[in-house]
C-alpha cells in the first residue's frame, strides 16, 4: 500500500466505525 492508500484506508475506516459505533451505542442506550 502506498502512503496515500493508507491515508484513505484509515480515514474511511474511522468514518464508518465512528458512524456505526455512535449509532449503535445510542440505539442500545435507548432500549
Amino acid at each position, binding site marked *: *500500500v*502506498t502512503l*496515500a*492508500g*493508507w*491515508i*484513505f*484506508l484509515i*480515514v*474511511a*475506516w474511522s*468514518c*464508518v*466505525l465512528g*458512524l*456505526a*459505533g*455512535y*449509532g*449503535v451505542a*445510542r*440505539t*442500545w442506550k*435507548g*432500549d
Partner: protein
Amino acid sequence: VSRERWATRIGLVLALAGNAIGLGNFLRFPRQAAENGGGAFMIPYFVCLLAIGIPLLWVELSIGRLGGRHGRGHTAGMFEVLWSHPISKYVGTLGLFIPYVVACYYVFVSSWCLAYAWFSLDGSYFGLGSLDEVGRFLAGYQGVEANRHFSSIAPAYGFYVVSFGLTVVILLGGIARGIERLALFAMPLLFVFAVVLMLRVLTLDPPPGAGPDQTVSNGLGFVWNPDFGAIANPQVWLAAAGQIFFTLSVGWGILHTYASYMAPDDDVALTGISTAGLNEVAEVVLGGTIALTSAVVFFGVVEARAIASQGSFDLGFHAMPLALEQMPGGRLFGALWFLLLFFAGITSSVAMLQPTIALLREDFGLARTPAVLATALLVFLGAQPVIFWIGHGFMDQLDFWAGSFGLLLFGFLEILIFTRLFGMARGWAEITRGARLRVPRVFHFVIAWVMPLGMGAILLAWSATNLLPELGLEKVPEADRPYVLAARWMLLVVLAAYWLAVHFGARARRAREPAA
C-alpha cells in the same frame, strides 16, 4: 386491529442491517473500488452516502412508519396515504413486485452459500487446482452440466429446500419472534465471522512459489491506492451512486414494510444512521479486505484484476474457493466465509417475503400462518424456472428488470411522490418526528432538490447504458432467447397479478373498514 411491533430498537436496527448487508457488501464493493480509482473512489462514495443513501433511508423509514400508523404494511397502501390519487397504489405495487421477483432467485443463490459451507467442511472442492475446474464444480452443482463432480441438480435442489424451509419457519414466528430473533442471532455472528476472516487474510503468508507481488500489502493497495484522476470521471461518480443505492437496499419496498412495525413516534433519524453505519462497516472495513486481498495473495495482482472484472459470482464462487483450498485452516475458514454469506443472504430473504405477507394479512384479512404459507408457495413456484433454467439466463433477466432497473425506477418515483405530492413540509415533519438526534436543516434542501435530480440522473444514465442493449437481446445467444422471453413474460404476469391483488385487496379492506 393492533399491529405487530418490534420488541427492541436494537432488534429493528439489526433486522434493517441484516436486510441491507448482503453478498454485495463482500463481493461487489471491493470490485467497484478497485476498478474505479481505489482509495479515491471513497470520495464520491461518501458524498453519495450523505447526499443519497442516508436521506433515502430516512425517507423510506418515514413512509413506512407513517403507513404503519394507517395500518398499511406494503408500499401500495402507503402510497395511497402519501398521495390520494387512484393510481398511487399501482405505482406503490412496485414495492411488492420487486421483492417477490428477487426472492424467486435470491433464496436459491443463498442456498449455494449454505451448500459451499458444507463443501468446505467435507473438503469437496479442495484439490481442484484451477479456476476452470472450480468453475466446472459450480456448473455441475447448478445442474448446468453433468460432470465428475455432480451428476444431477438434486444436491442443489436439496440445499434450496432446506434454505427455503428455514426462511419460512422464521417468517411463521412473525416480526418480533421470527425476524427480530433471527437478526439478534445472525448479525452478531456474521460480524464475528467476518472479523475472524479479516484477521486470517491480513496475516496470510504468500503461498509457496508465489511471485514478489503476492503480498497482503499489495492486496490492500489493490483496493485502496488512490488514482486521483478518477474523481473527474463521471462514470466513477455513477458507479459510486449505484453502489450506495444497491448496498443500502433502498428502492425495494422492504424498508417501508419493516418500518411499518415501529411505534408511531419511534425515531427514524438515529435508526437510519445506525443501519447505514453497520452496513458501511460490513462493506468498507470487512468487505474491502477479505475477498480481493486473498485473491491478490493467491493469484497475484494481474490475475486478481481479471477476476474482479468478471463479476461478483466469479469472485465469490470461483476465486474464493480456490484461495481457501490453499489457505492454512482452509476448511474452517471456508465454512466461516460461506456461512457468513448465507447469514447475509437469509436475513435478506425473510425481508423479501414480508411485503406480500403484509398484503395478504392486511388487505385480504388472512391470519399469519396462512399468509406466510401462501406467500411461500408463490415464491416456491416462481423459483422453479430459475432453478431449472439457470444456464439459459432466466435468473439474469429477473435480476436485470426487478433487481436493478426496478429499484432505480421505484426509488426515483417514491422520491418524487414524497417531495412533490406528499410535500416537503409534511415530509420533513415525518422525518424529524420523534427523532433522537437533530437532523441538520441542510438535509431539507438535499431531500427536496439534490435527491430528485440525483436519482433522476442515475436512472437516466443507467438506462442509457444498459436498457437498449438489453431490450435488443444483444448479449443473448440464439438458443437462450426463448428462455429470456419466458422470463419477461413471467415478469409481466407477476406485475399484472400484483396490480389485481392490490386492486381487489384495497376494495376488500374498504369493505371491512367502518365508513368514516
